[in-house]
């Protein structure tokens, strides 16, 4: 990697670090039900929305909160499904794009509602402008807003407060966090050359005199929420590798910052909301260590390149450049691939399919762990679940019933946590096995790489990431429905179960801290947490990874 590449990564990481804490404190204030200074700016508009929706905003029980979450999200899936199905009859369709096939429409609706943005279609040819703007962009706001609401309710529960009201949180997520930032970012993207227009594709004559259609549209507004909301679905098929969706290094930097902004801020918001900033900082540092580990492995693998190609005498000082954009180079491509999978965004500026086997494994591993920051809300929810498992094991080791933030973790909570822990690997391993057995023809590669493609598809679905390893003929009813189910369960099971945990903990008396308490705000806990994430997370997927990327890596010899 070049010095410039190294510096560009260092600067990006530094900016992420600088933004996380203030953003976290802002989030904590934004979701504080006590009166804060922010109310003066946002409350009038929010009150109006509440009145229009007939929402009173009373505190909800965990069951009400979870029910409103699942019901409102499901209703939105139905609405967008209908828009996709009938887009050819609806306005704003200058490209005369036809109606979507039913299973693809369902898959796409679930995909965007669950913040996954797995795309079994190509944006330019599959969706009308109305579908892009009303259906897709609408879900790109409500999906992360739903998850942000859930994590805030969960944290309130840990802090021993009522969980709050889903609708109030949903509105606040949009008015106070997503909309203002996305608006500013969109303007920045426009300045950097990203199109924002309702005109149909531009028709130009090339130098050779041929006629070419250049797809365009309201890209900038789409792009900003795509990154900020950890959505990841591309306006264009090739996503952020497309010059109009990611024109230069600066737009690339902004995209990375947007992907990481809210998810790195959440631990700080958590620390503030539970009244102990150290608790949040420890988790942030732990996740950052995992992130750096992943990044290090990815970069060194990409730098080493493909020994088969290297042995042919191809210039290899740049590392593996296959599938990468020269305007980003190895450093920014590797970084982007780690960021987009760590934050479960799914936007890509390089084709993950063409990463080296180990570089590709890093992207899958991020999604398998789903705790290297993770997507807005959902990621940190997972992190707190792993923290509780770490607390449970370490509590036993010091001879006390485990406590997390002073609340005892007992049988009831552990049952819910154990079930949640189970869901993620099952959602990845079982459908992958079924697909490998039933759909070998839709997999473009034989052998280890083909296995990785399938594994990637379901890992990406279960973790609600949405990026693809490509190479799958995945627009078939089998893939559409199976990934649809995986995305839906992967999204809501953990949220509902962990809301129940939060409510159960909130109802408990907090045990005061003493010398006998196992502390969760120091380096030792960070170590235990990382250990638990790696061992519990990695043990589950080790055999699958061995048969996919690791075998591919080992057999890649000249």
């Amino acid at each position, binding site marked *: 990697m070049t010095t410039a590449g190294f510096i560009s990564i260092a600067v990006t990481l530094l900016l992420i670090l600088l933004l996380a804490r203030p953003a976290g404190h802002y989030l904590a204030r934004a979701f504080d039900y006590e009166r804060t200074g922010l109310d003066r700016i946002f409350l009038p508009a929010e009150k109006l929305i509440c009145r229009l929706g007939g929402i009173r905003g009373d505190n909800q029980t965990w069951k009400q909160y979870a029910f409103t979450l699942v019901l409102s999200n499901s209703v939105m899936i139905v609405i967008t499904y209908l828009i996709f199905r009938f887009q050819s009859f609806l306005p704003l369709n200058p490209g005369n794009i036809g109606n979507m096939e039913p299973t693809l429409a369902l898959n796409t609706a679930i995909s965007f509602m669950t913040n996954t943005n797995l795309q079994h279609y190509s944006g330019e040819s599959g969706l009308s402008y109305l579908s892009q703007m009303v259906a897709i962009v609408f879900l790109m706001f409500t999906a992360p807003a739903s998850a942000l609401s859930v994590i805030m309710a969960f944290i309130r529960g840990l802090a021993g407060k009522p969980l709050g009201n889903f609708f109030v949180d949903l509105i606040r997520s949009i008015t106070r966090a997503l909309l203002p930032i996305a608006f500013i970012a969109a303007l920045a993207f426009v300045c950097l050359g990203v199109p924002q227009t309702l005109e149909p594709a531009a028709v130009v004559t090339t130098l050779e005199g041929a006629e070419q259609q250049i797809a365009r549209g309201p890209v900038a507004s789409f792009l900003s929420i795509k990154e900020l909301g950890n959505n990841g679905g591309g306006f264009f098929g090739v996503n952020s590798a497309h010059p109009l969706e990611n024109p230069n290094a600066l737009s690339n930097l902004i995209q990375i910052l947007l992907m990481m902004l809210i998810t790195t801020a959440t631990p700080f918001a958590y620390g503030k909301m539970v009244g102990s900033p150290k608790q949040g900082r420890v988790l942030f540092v732990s996740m950052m260590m995992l992130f750096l580990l992943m990044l290090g492995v990815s970069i060194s693998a990409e730098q080493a390149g493909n020994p088969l190609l290297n042995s042919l005498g191809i210039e290899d000082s740049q590392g593996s450049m296959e599938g990468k954009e020269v305007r980003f180079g190895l450093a920014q491509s590797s970084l982007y691939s780690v960021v987009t999978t760590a934050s479960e965004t799914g936007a890509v500026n390089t084709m993950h399919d063409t990463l080296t086997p180990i570089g590709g494994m890093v992207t899958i591993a991020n999604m398998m762990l789903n705790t290297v920051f993770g997507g807005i809300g959902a990621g940190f929810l997972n992190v707190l679940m792993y923290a509780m498992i770490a607390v449970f094991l370490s509590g036993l080791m010091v001879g006390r019933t485990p406590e997390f933030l002073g609340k005892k973790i007992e049988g009831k909570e*552990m049952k819910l946590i154990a079930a949640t822990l189970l869901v993620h690997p099952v959602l990845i391993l079982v459908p992958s096995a079924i697909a490998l057995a039933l759909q070998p023809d839709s997999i473009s590669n034989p052998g280890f790489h083909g296995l990785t493609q399938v594994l990637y598809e379901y890992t990406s679905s279960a973790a609600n990431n949405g990026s693809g390893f490509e190479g799958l003929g995945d627009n078939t009813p089998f893939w559409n429905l199976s990934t649809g189910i995986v995305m839906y369960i992967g999204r809501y099971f953990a949220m509902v179960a962990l809301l129940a945990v939060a409510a159960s903990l909130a109802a408990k008396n907090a045990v005061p801290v003493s010398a006998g308490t196992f502390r969760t705000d120091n380096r030792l806990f960070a170590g235990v947490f990382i250990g638990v994430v790696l061992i519990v997370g990695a043990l589950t997927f080790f055999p699958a990874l061995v048969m996919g990327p690791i075998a591919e890596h080992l057999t890649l010899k000249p």
Partner: protein
Amino acid sequence: MNTKKTMLGGDTIRQAAKQAIVKLDPRIMFRNPVMFVVEIGFVITLLLCIFPDAFGGTVPRWFNITTTVILLFTVLFANFAEALAEGRGKAQADSLKKTKQDITARKWVNGSVKQVSSSDLKKGDVVIVPAGEMIPGDGEVIEGLASVDESAITGESAPVIKEAGGDFSSVTGGTKVVSDQIKVRITADQGESFLDRMIVLVEGAERQKTPNEIALNTVLVSLTIIFLVVVVTLPFYSDFLQIQMEVPILIALLVCLIPTTIGGLLSAIGIAGMDRVTQFNVLAMSGKAVEASGDINTIILDKTGTITFGNRMASEFISAAGHKNSDTACWAAISSLKDETPEGRSVLELIKKLGHSYDEKLADGGEFIEFRAETRMSGINLKDGRQVRKGAVDAVKKWVLSQGGSVPKDLESNSDAIASAGGTPLAVAVDDTIYGLIYLKDTVKPGMRERFEQMRRMGIKTIMCTGDNPLTAATIAREAGVDDFIAESKPEDKIAVIRREQAEGKLVAMTGDGTNDAPALAQADVGIAMNSGTVAAKEAANMVDLDSDPSKIIEVVAIGKQMLMTRGALTTFSIANDIAKYFAIIPAMFMLAVPEMGALNIMKLDSPVSAILSALIFNAVIIPLLIPLAIKGVAYKPMSSNRLLSRNLLIYGLGGILVPFAGIKLIDLAVHHWV
């Protein structure tokens, strides 16, 4: 208990081995899901021994047989661990059952004695028990005083005094009256007596899983399901790669990955934890209570008898103006020569300690004056006519004045100083002269300070309860190093303190023996009643200390913690083991089809077959190797949680990662010779 020492006698081991086979019954195995999976694996491989190609496999028959045998032993080892832990309780129960024979009781009916069988006695019946006879059932002394030999229950051979009324009125069936005769009202029906309950408890027949055990079990089941999914999906993956997967190898992988070590030892740890408490002569009514004691945040202790010896002891002589300390000591000694009270004896001990000498012969032939509540003095009338007295300051003062003597000017100020420091002053006088004062102090038991210091390190707060005035209480509290005290406390105060602490989310333990302690014992999360105490107290408590030593609560806390720690340590160890097992089995599974996978064979195991068998053998033998640890519990020293965790992580976490690498490699070195 007499059978205490028979921990690992040959008989116990034989019994346990037999039980291990009985427990193979799937209906029993089902209760332990982790080991049940292993048993199913065993059945499948057994079938494969008979029909080797049932799944189209190509592994040789001997491999199937070896795997079957190892799996069988894995299950047997786990069963053996449980049976061994249970066996120790059973041996105790048997010796208790011997105590519980049917005897003839003298039932008191309308003023006359009627001979009935002890099994016909009902609650409310009254029986007479003369010296030399066994008490036929649990009850309360309603008349008389007797010394009772309770060694059958407590193991303590010195008889204890039981008398009607007060806190020493309860007697236990199966104990023996040694002297005198008592009338007892039976308080428990047959089958519900203390002895009956004790037998049930030590047998562990009604053992219920504790909350923490349930939580841990949930995690283990979840891990088992995850690994089941991992292994079941594996052949689909390998099919796609056109690599053949053998069923016995998949079963081997599954058994190695699921947490069999902790799964096999979990119930043994629980039983052994209860048992450790019993060995300690404390009877826990449930495992939940033992577990809760590990979580205790606050301990409420009675001052008298727990923290201090309860009797005041002489600690200093303070002479009045014009007298020498040695004279005061000498007369104090003369007055105490025949005084058998603890105070009197302590005076003589103090003199010995200080090195004062006095003439014992002075007292020869003197008339000892015993302490009486009216006079509040004791002493001796010497042969030469001199009268020596020691006693309450104002009583002695009055006595001296009545003989025309005078009171030293500094007496008042000295005695006030002693009183305000929490002590009791005794004046010493000979005829009309007051020589000085004996400073009596309630003495803190040796070692208590260190124990409270330990508890503070463990994060446990200690509260001392005493009937003393606040001044005295504060002095003792300071001296003993307790965190807090309640002076002039009434029984209600204890409940109030317990409720206050509980409202803050803390778990509270207390000890007590009197009937008036019963409500507080019931309110406390861990209540330990003294066996010498009343029936009401014992009923309300969730533990009974057979030795009636209230300070034992501290050890009970340690045992509770130890039980949780042992579970945590072995769980961590078990999960960490998986890393090495993966590196043994995964390369072995693929090395034939993909030779490059040999790069993952970092242990350089000889062949795929020996690698798999070595991992499987390691997985099996680690269970019996860890039985002693499971039964004894991991070492526990009071220290802060963070240090404890670092230490245990190092031993069981890091150890759990490294030990199997070494173990599997060693086994492979042996196994590969005949593979």
